[in-house]
């Protein structure tokens, strides 16, 4: 996503909403997270979630503006974002693209296709791949 964000930086805002954990160690923990040392219990306070979000930003030197869904999960409730999902909202605040829930519905290349259609002048090769 970072390559895509840089490519369209002048024309598009990118915002990350940090929502409830998909695979915390006290719920549906994944072996891959254990291998990578990403082990957190599901936060029960906003402060705990903010702490994990900060760890995430540090680990990946995450550049995109990132905001945290408060512990009552209002953003997730409104957008059904769990475990990961894309939307595109136009200048008027209207939803123009709604991705499907990840991991199987998580398709950065669909986001890129929408942006490429809207901003054909940007051109160039694909910045995202299905796995990025």
């Amino acid at each position, binding site marked *: 996503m970072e390559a895509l964000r840089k490519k369209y930086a002048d024309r598009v805002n990118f915002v990350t909403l940090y929502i409830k954990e998909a695979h915390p160690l006290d719920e549906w923990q994944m072996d891959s997270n254990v291998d990578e040392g990403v082990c*957190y219990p599901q936060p029960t306070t906003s402060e705990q979630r903010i702490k994990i979000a900060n760890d995430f930003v540090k680990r990946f030197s995450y550049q995109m503006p990132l905001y945290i869904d408060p512990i009552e999960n209002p*953003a997730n409730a409104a957008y059904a974002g769990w475990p990961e999902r894309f939307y595109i909202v136009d200048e008027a605040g209207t939803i123009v693209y709604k991705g499907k829930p990840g991991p199987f519905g998580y398709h950065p290349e669909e986001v890129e296709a929408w942006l490429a259609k809207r901003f054909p002048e940007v051109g160039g090769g694909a910045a995202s791949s299905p796995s990025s």
Partner: protein
Amino acid sequence: MRLWKKIVIGVAALGLLALGGFTYMVGGPRNLIGMLRYDQRDEGKLQVGDRAPDVQMLSLDGKTPVKLSSQIGDKPTVLVFGSFT
């Protein structure tokens, strides 16, 4: 052996094979149990063409409430939902 017994055994064997295959596909029995208990994937009610609901978010320093609507406006906005895990 009677035919119906053969059929029952055959169907049971196929069922076990399918369950085993599915368990393997989702990454082992632990992930299967996790998925059955904690899968919260939801299509959601929003549709393309709807107004993006405004929500109050928190900044990384934890001190500043930020409205999503304040991030939308001058350009199209890509919203990325996700978590570390």
